[in-house]
């Protein structure tokens, strides 16, 4: 019997100690780990094979993580996590949202990185960067986390965007509460159903014309939630 294929993770960091520590931890979590200590080295490895996900350090001499992420996305739409010594408030990281699925601010717990890798890979198969409901009345750009309705435009939180993405991958079908909790939050978040209730309530305020009588984000009592397309859904690549 063949053993299941381990998803490949390409770690790119100029700090060899950190690379070694992370390799061991990610490998223990069941991934096939490849490493590179520079942007050009990582691009060279991509010529041979594509990993399931890349973890890229932002600050590297020569080609920095920003440039590497940009070039990777030109080659293929591979999910990217950026390791950064700066945090989300920095303008450069905001710009990185165009290329990276997630970022982790140093110093971090390697377990946290593993949790994020798992979460992104779980979502990767469902992902389409745009959601369109009701023939374009409602548009969601998941890359910039922007939701546009006839009433106006709203910024979604990362959690709200993940929730919409998971629901949109099964449009017009019910997604059970447990599955939503599992796919939208990490184990480290310690989420319970109340997280989902409050997040749905807040999302409806942005999505629905009348949040008390939702048209798109429907509760299936005792089971979970369903995203209706309004009329049709058109996922666009």
């Amino acid at each position, binding site marked *: 019997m063949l053993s299941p294929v381990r998803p490949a993770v390409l770690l790119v960091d100029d700090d060899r100690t950190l690379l070694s520590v992370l390799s061991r931890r990610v490998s223990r979590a069941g991934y096939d780990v490849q490493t590179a200590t520079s942007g050009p080295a990582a691009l060279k490895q991509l010529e041979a094979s594509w990993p399931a996900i890349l973890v890229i350090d932002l*600050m590297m001499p020569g080609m920095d993580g920003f440039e590497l992420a940009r070039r990777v996305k030109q080659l293929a739409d591979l999910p990217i996590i950026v390791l950064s*010594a700066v945090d*989300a408030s*920095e303008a450069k990281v905001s710009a990185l949202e165009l290329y990276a699925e997630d970022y982790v601010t140093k*110093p971090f*717990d390697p377990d946290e990185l593993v949790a994020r890798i798992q979460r992104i890979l779980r979502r990767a198969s469902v992902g389409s960067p745009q959601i369109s409901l009701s023939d374009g009345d409602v548009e969601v750009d998941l890359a910039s986390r922007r939701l546009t309705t006839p009433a106006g435009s709203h910024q979604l*939180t*990362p959690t709200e965007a993940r929730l919409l993405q998971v629901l949109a991958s099964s449009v017009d079908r019910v997604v059970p509460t447990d599955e939503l909790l599992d796919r939208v939050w990490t184990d480290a978040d310690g989420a319970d159903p109340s*997280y989902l209730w*409050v997040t749905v309530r807040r999302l409806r305020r942005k999505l629905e014309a009348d949040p008390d009588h939702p048209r798109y984000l429907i509760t299936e009592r005792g089971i979970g939630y369903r995203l209706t397309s309004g009329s049709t859904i058109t996922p666009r690549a």
Partner: protein
Amino acid sequence: MPRTGLWLRVFVALLLAVLPPLLLLVGALLLTETILRDTEPDLVAIVVVAGSIVWAAVLGIVYARGLGDDVRSLLTLAERGDAGTDPEIGDAYRQMASSLDERNRQVAALAREANLVPIDDAPRQVVAAVVSAVRSVMRDETWRCAVLASESEDILPPGIYHGTDESRDVEPIGELERWAAVSAADVPAGRVEGPWGAFAVIDVAVSDRMRAILYAPWEGRVKPTPAEVDLLTLVGQHAGTALEHSLLYARVRSQADELNRLAAVQADFLRGVTHDLQTPLTSIGALATELRADESVPDRARADLESITHQAERLRRMVGQLLVASRLEAGVLTAQQEVFAVPPLVERTWAALRADRPFELVVEGAPHLAVADPDRLEQVLWALLDNAVKYSPDGSAIGVHIEPDGEELAITVRDSGIGMDEATRERAFEQFYRSRDARRMVPDGSGVGLYAASGLMAAMGGSLGIDTELGRGSAFTMRVPAEPSANGE
């Protein structure tokens, strides 16, 4: 003479001319009827006519003179209106008016140029602008400015300056300029004459340590009138004011630039150091965790690894606080908005502190979830709990109380420590501020914790408040946006 007077006189003249012959005629007729009844009527008529003629002749002679004067004066007036006044006087008037016009133009130009001379530019440009202004006011392109001594030679070196439209470098001061300056030392403006010829010189009054003159060749030109000297003096005063302002501005700007540079260096240093610490800290923490998980590691080493992990964690927290402080300084701190439960976060943070203290967490009211940045709130909680432990006696209890308050959760961290007096409470959230009691009790504190905590709460749309009493302890209350967590469906 007034015109009405003239006509009155003409009327009176006519009356006098006509009335006496009529009276003579009437008188003659009456006399003929009464006394001169026997006299020949022709004779009476002749006498009347002759008398009238004589009367008319007398009147004619007398009035011809008076009316002639009037007519002559009228003609003179007409001539004046037509041809102006006397040619000589007219010329004098014209010269005076032209001179006044020129003076008015100069004063207006001076006012205009004085407004145009920039004060916020480099002093070199200001001197050039002053020269251009003087040239424009005096309509004379030979004016220059010699800066003989400068209190700030780096921003305004001594030398000869030309106008703004001339792309000429500053030339070195020569004997001519030194002589002109010495010759004109006693007066604000005037004409001097010597081995180099005649010059008009204006003293530019700036300060005791700075000396400058404006000067132009004046050979073959009339000595400036007192009015011109006054104008030149005014020019010198304006030039001095412009230069003084410009130097002051340049000094203030240079000081501000230096302060900004130092602040930027400090901020860069802080960020650089913290960034450089972040990667090794990740490795240290991760390596220690891995080793602890290794069953072959002996127990004694495991205890040391525990300490390494704990200290690395403390260091990570402190680096985090410094990063927050530097972001607050740069005004780039933002926070995520996630939904999360606060009590588990409090418990995790307290556990991470590993403080050997009695601890009580009380949650009251309807269950709520905070809508904030969990990592940021954890940073604030850690800073407050760490402070509570540091500034209260060993063995004393620390308590956290969570309760909804409107659309917020109020999270209060309470200790029974040293507390704060009013002055300390007011400055508690200032960066690097530490009270004397705080320094005595915890000598190695950074003074960044509460500053960062307060900034983080504000970035999350919340707030941080203190209720404290000296010697009785402190209660810090964080308020964060929250929502009821009950399922409303």
